[in-house]
């Protein structure tokens, strides 16, 4: 910006600060609530500063059973979520980079038909096809398994599409130079395509990890065994208590934990993420 108007600067900063508050305040309240007794949160006045039950709540949340019918501790559910999110992210990337490779670089019959079929699945997210997908997973006896959690979410048109677009920008001469240099399809994929797609893969990983981590409906549907519960769906379970008080402090602590991994991934991979979406190495 070349303009130099101090009031404009002040005003825009105030707006930005308000935005930050709007996003950060609920998180702050959740953090504070996790350090009070469960009663403090429902008494009408929401506390805005830390209470003295923090250590107690966090210890309980992390190491003992989560309660409300959930027999496993939160860290165990975090592991489940992590396994699922990583499986979805890596599975999607692996499958879509290979299918994009086939669609862009190989001339096989009905190539564009294949692409459009893949593309059409964009219109069929899990929520739309949830009954038939459940049937399939159930017939394959994959209910209550990590495979069942991740597999139906792995097939992905978005990632295939993204890789396709980035492969299309690779000049034909580069492919030909590799051919003359004696690189067959495998070598070309591993020596040239994969390293060139590094930033794309990183950007996709961030998006897909968060997508996988935040899955709610699908895990809720296919897991009945505590050993496979994921964190995001369990928070809901902890709130729906039939009788007795809801342990808001534990719920809030769990929520904080549920937010943590996506934040770590985004912050840690921020640079690669932006690079992958904005520029390319070509």
């Amino acid at each position, binding site marked *: 910006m070349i303009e130099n108007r101090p009031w404009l600067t002040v005003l825009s900063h105030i707006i930005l600060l308000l935005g930050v508050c709007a996003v950060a305040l609920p998180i702050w309240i959740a953090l504070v609530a996790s350090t009070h007794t469960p009663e403090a949160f429902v008494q009408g006045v929401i506390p805005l500063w830390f209470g003295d039950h923090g250590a107690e709540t966090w210890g309980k949340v992390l190491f003992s059973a989560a309660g409300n019918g959930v027999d496993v501790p939160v860290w165990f559910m975090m592991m489940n979520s992590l396994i699922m999110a990583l499986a979805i992210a890596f599975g999607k990337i692996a499958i879509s980079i290979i299918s994009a490779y086939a669609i862009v670089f190989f001339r096989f019959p009905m190539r564009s038909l294949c692409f459009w079929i893949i593309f059409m699945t964009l219109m069929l997210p899990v929520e739309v096809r949830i009954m038939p997908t459940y049937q399939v997973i159930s017939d394959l006896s994959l209910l209550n398994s990590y495979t069942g959690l991740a597999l139906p979410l792995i097939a992905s048109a978005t990632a295939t599409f993204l890789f396709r677009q980035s492969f299309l920008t690779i*000049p034909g*001469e*580069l492919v030909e*130079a590799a*051919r*003359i*240099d*004696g*690189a067959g399809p495998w070598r070309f994929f591993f*020596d040239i395509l994969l390293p060139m797609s590094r930033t794309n893969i990183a950007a996709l990983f961030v998006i897909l990890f968060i997508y996988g981590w935040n899955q709610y409906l699908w895990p809720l549907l296919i897991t009945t065994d505590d050993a496979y519960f994921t964190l995001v769906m369990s928070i809901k379970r902890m709130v729906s208590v039939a009788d007795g008080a809801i342990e808001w402090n534990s719920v809030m602590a769990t929520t904080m934990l549920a937010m943590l991994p996506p934040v770590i991934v985004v912050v840690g991979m921020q640079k690669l993420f932006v690079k992958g979406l904005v520029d390319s190495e070509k």
Partner: protein
Amino acid sequence: MAEVILKEVGKTYPNGFNAIPAVDLHIADGEFIVLVGPSGCGKSTLLRMVAGLESITSGELTINGTVMNKKEPADRDIAMVFQNYALYPHMTVFNNMAYGLKNRGVDKATILKKVNSVGDMLGLEELLDRKPKQLSGGQRQRVAMGRAMVRDPQVFLFDEPLSNLDAKLRVQMRVEIRQLQRKLGTTTLYVTHDQVEAMTLADRLVVLNKGNAEQIGTPLELYERPATPFVAAFIGSPSMNLLDAKVADGVLSIGANIRLATDLSFNKNVVWGIRPEHLECLPESAPNEDADFILTVQAVESLGAETLIYGTLEGVETIVVVRLSGPHSPELGSQMKLKAPSAKWHLFDASTQQRL
């Protein structure tokens, strides 16, 4: 080192488009052949067919006596330099040059030795650790050549390698390519649309027009005795003046008014040509009868060492160019008396387009 023979090599695309009907070309060992022609004439296609990047649909290609029609590019022992260099963006200069050797299973010590010696030859010693992104256009061009040279191939193929460089660098690299090729003695096939590049580099030139080899010969042969009006117009800058004319009863007539005496004995419609540098300008004081024709000046381009004068002849629509050495400044609209010595004429049959 190798001999490359194209025997009636042709290309027809699946959609029926016949890009190259049939080209016969015998490239001797160590020869520098330039394929030249306007864009879309099939010169790149022909090169890519030799490289194996395009299939050959008819005829036979042999390199060193082996038929190569069905072989993969990597098995033909050729190396190619592309117009946009096609360097691997994620690899260092060293790895770019070493990649082909690595894929052929050459051991590491040999790779190191070869890449370093080629790097020295091209002045790339300092740049071996850099990525292509960090190099200038000329340096990238060198790396692309280094990648080709490192493999010590039977044949070098160049696909307009200098088009992306600025004018000064282009001249410099042109000289360098010629010297390297002489030194290495590798058979070379080079594609360009730039006729100056073609003339200066080639041992022999192939002028392509719509997939046909119009003429094959040394640069001077093509300049002095072009076989067709197409070659005549393509070789030489500014290009040859070509006018429709008619020979009858010992007189060559151009348009309605120009009559030139000639000792040609046939009667025919012809294309009459003369190079701009062969037209002679008579002094103003010379009598009109001495001049072959009068040019009305329409534009003047002064280049210092020479002057190009554009104008029209009486009764002829085509613009005629005259090239005079040194500075001249005729007024626009003024008239110049020109002489066209008959020894410098080029005559082509108007119907067959062949040289007479």
